[in-house]
Each structure stands twice: as C-alpha cells, then as structure tokens.
C-alpha cells in the first residue's frame, strides 16, 4: 500500500516535471482548455444570476384571495393560519376590508373621494406568499384551483404570465448551458487526448524500453494519466481566474441590472467546494482524455 502510494507520487511528480520541460506546449493546451471551460462556467454564473433575480421576484409574488363579504375577521384569521401550515407556503397575511381601504387611501391619493362613499367597496383579502423554491407556475396553478374551491374565497388571483416567461427563459438557458458544457467538455477531452497521444509518440522509445525491462502497462500508463489530469486541472484553475476576472468586470453592470428588478445581485464569495470544482472537472476531463489516448495507443507500442 505504502509502496503503491510512493509509485503514484513518483508518477505524479515525474509527469509534472514533463509538463514543465514542455512548458510552452503545456501552456498552449492549458490555455485552450481554460477558454473551453470558461464559456460554460460563465453561462452557469449568468444563469445563477437570473435565477437569483427570478427567485427574488417570486419571493415578492403573491396570490391574492378575495374573501366573501360574510367572512368574519376571526374566520379569515383562522383560514390564514391554516394556509400558513400548508407545505410550500411561506406566509398568509390577512388584510381586513378596513385595512385594505386604508392602504388604498394612502397609496392612491383618492382619500377624499373615498370619504364620499358610505360603505367600504373593497373586500377583505388574504395575501399568500409561496416559498421561493415552490413557486413554479405549475404548482401555483394547482394552488389557485385549490384556493378558489375554499368556501370563504370569492376569487383567487395571481399574475403568473411573467413568472412563466422567466421560468421558460431560465429553462432554455439551462439546456443551452448543458449543451455548451457537453460540447466544450468533449472538446477538452479531445484536446488532452491529442496532447497525450503526441506525448506517447514522442516517448515511444522510452515506452518500448520500459516494456523490455519489465514495466507493467499500469506503470507506463500512470504518468500519462497524471499528465492528463494535471493539464485539465491547470486549465480548470485558469478558467476559474478567467471567470472571476470577467465577473469582476461585469459586476457593476450586473448590479445595475439586478437593481432594475428590485433585486440585489452581489458577487458571492465562493466557497472552497466551488473553488475546487472547476479544476476538478478539468482534471477529470483530462483524465478521460488521457485514458482514451493511452488505451488506444499504448498497446501499439511493443518492442520488436
């Protein structure tokens, strides 16, 4: 076990050394990998921003339940309490007809005109706010039907056209990001596969000699696999710098955009996991590319 880890360390540092010896070639392929990984990561971040904005919107979105006139304050409060207990509902606030009138008076500026009325024309209502993660259009439609069927409720309303639209956009964006990721991820695999293929051919003699003196295939494979992983991980790390560099440039504009939608977008300080994710993904793609190259070409090199 200890012996094996020593051998892995040997292969690890050996392939690092090889990368350094061929540093210009390495730099080129790392740069290509970095660009290939930057694009989908950038897309995902933009998507995350959109999601955040839409979440804020949806958080502000509410279903209004207009109550029948005969429903008493006590009954309405009891209903509010029940609704609040339902899974997926964040809050249900009761606004009595009097409070609604007062609110309207303040916001509309029609105060004196309202004084002319001898009865309050407004119904009392419940404002139901769904939890952010439950606020997809389908779920809201289900709730609307449910609420309309309640005996206390006269009408239930929700303006969900825009939620649906935004949801659609985010959905399309997700698919686009997934496609771009798959394509460019495949590109990274091919790039590294090709680099490793060249490295294998450059070191043909060495491979042949190693086989002659009793090297196992695993031993010969190891440094190439490490090399693929290292190039991918370096590419991923560079992509990380590129993504956050360009985010820094984009941040003021993004903040402004978010401001239009009464939302706050702040560049989140990323955690360790996310920080490691991009190099790790790059490394794994590199490993796959190297594996393909190695399993395809190493067999052909036999001493003769």
């Amino acid at each position, binding site marked *: 076990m200890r*012996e094996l880890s020593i051998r892995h360390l040997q292969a690890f540092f050996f392939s690092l050394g090889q990368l350094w010896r061929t540093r210009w070639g390495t730099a080129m392929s790392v740069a290509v990998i970095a660009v290939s990984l930057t694009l989908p990561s950038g897309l995902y971040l933009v998507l995350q921003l959109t999601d955040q904005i839409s979440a804020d919107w949806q958080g502000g979105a509410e279903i209004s339940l207009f109550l029948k006139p005969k429903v008493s304050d006590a009954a309405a409060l009891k209903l509010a309490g029940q609704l609040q207990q339902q899974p997926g509902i964040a809050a249900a606030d009761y606004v009595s007809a009097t409070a609604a009138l007062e609110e309207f008076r303040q916001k509309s500026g029609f105060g004196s005109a309202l004084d002319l009325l001898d009865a309050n024309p407004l119904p009392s209502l419940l404002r139901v706010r769904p939890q952010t993660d439950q606020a997809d259009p389908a779920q809201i439609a289900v709730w609307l039907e449910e609420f309309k069927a309640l005996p206390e409720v006269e009408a239930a309303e929700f303006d969900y056209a825009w939620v649906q639209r935004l949801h659609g956009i985010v959905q399309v964006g997700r698919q686009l990001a997934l496609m771009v990721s798959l394509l460019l991820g495949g590109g990274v695999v091919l790039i590294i596969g090709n680099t490793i293929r060249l490295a294998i051919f450059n070191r043909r003699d060495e491979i042949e*000699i*190693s086989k*002659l*003196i*009793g090297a*196992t295939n695993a*031993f010969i494979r190891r440094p190439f696999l490490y090399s693929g992983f290292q190039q991918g991980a370096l590419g991923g790390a560079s992509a990380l710098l590129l993504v956050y560099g360009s985010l820094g440039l984009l941040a003021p504009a993004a903040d402004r955009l978010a401001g239009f939608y009464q939302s706050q977008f702040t560049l989140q300080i990323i955690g360790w996991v996310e920080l490691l994710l991009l190099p790790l993904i790059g490394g794994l793609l590199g490993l796959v590319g190297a594996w393909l190259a190695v399993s395809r070409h190493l067999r052909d090199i*036999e001493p*003769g």
Partner: protein
Amino acid sequence: MIRFSEVFKRYPGGGDALKNVDFRLVAGEMAFLTGHSGAGKSTLLKLITAIERPTRGQVWIGGENISRIKPRKVPYLRRRIGVIFQDHKLLYDRTVYDNIALPLVVAGLNHAEVRRRVRAALDKVGLLGKERSYPLTLSGGEQQRVGIARAVAGKPPLLLADEPTGNLDPELSLEIMNLFAEFNRVGVAVLIASHDLELIKQLGYRQMVLDHGELVAGGEQV
C-alpha cells in the same frame, strides 16, 4: 534455465526464422549463439523474452512454459532476464543513474535500495562517478557498459545479449565479453548472440550455431 523443445518460428509473410530448435541452457551456464546474418539469432533471443511467440514447440524459462504466456505476466518474466542490445537502447534524455535505475523503479524497489543497487552495478562495470553524465557524452564502450549495468542491476539469474560488441573495436569487445564472464562466474546464466568468431574461440565457452534457422551445432551441453 532455458529450454527449447522443437521450436519453430515463422513471421507473418516470411519463411521459417527458426526450424525445430532444441536446446537447454542450465542455470549458471554461459554460451554463445553464432551464425550468419539472418540465421535467426535475434529471433531466438526474442522468444526468450516473449517479444515473439513460437509458432510451434515449447519454450521454458526457469521452469515456466512461456510459449503461450499471458500478456499481463510478460513484465514479470522480463524482470528475471537482463537484456543487452547492440544499439544499447538507452534513454538519451536521462542520466546514467536514471537509466540504470529504470528497471529497479519499474520493479517497485524503494529509493534507498535503488541507490544501493545502481551504485553496485556501476561499480561492477567500472563506471562509478559517471552517474550524472548523459549517455551521449560517453564513448560507445562506456554506453554499452551502462546497458550492461542496467541489465544486471536487478540481479537477474539470466543475461541475454544481442551482438553486444557489434560496434566496438576488438580490444573493447574483449573487455565487454570478459565482463559477461565475470557475471557468469558469480552464477548468472549468460547467452550471447554474436558473430565475432575470433573472440568466441578465444574465450572458449559453449558455442551454438544457427544456420538458416536450424541449430546445427552446440545443441547439446558440453
């Protein structure tokens, strides 16, 4: 150590490179393999290291039948055999030390043991102090000694050499052959393919002669 039994080897699209070859080389024995160019000497050595497989017949190495050896077992066979080539087959971008260490690293020996054995091997071939040199800065004879050091570093019970003196002048050739004789004296079996008949006669070991793939002399032990 080595046993060939009715071995035939035919390359795809060629004639028989070996025909009905029968011989034994016992542990600790030293012998020369001679014959004209194209007689099948290299082919015979390649069968021993499983670079090639016999078309017919059986090959035993150290009691193991390797005629149909599985590919994943080949590395372990080769670790028991030290091989020396006419063109040295050194890694020219590595130091002498790294070249000799290669089979030891491949076999998974630890660092200290690798050092110890590389130094011992260098000592035996008379190249102590050259470990940091690169092969191309060495003379042909010295490069061949590096090749020999690499072959013996893992202390294999069998050494094979394919025309090890092919590019060397007679004096250096004798030195190299004497080096093999020294390893043989400490119990290593040695089989050397060579057509340097003068030298072989001078040394006086068993001589096996191949002629168009047939073993025409020296098949029996002396």
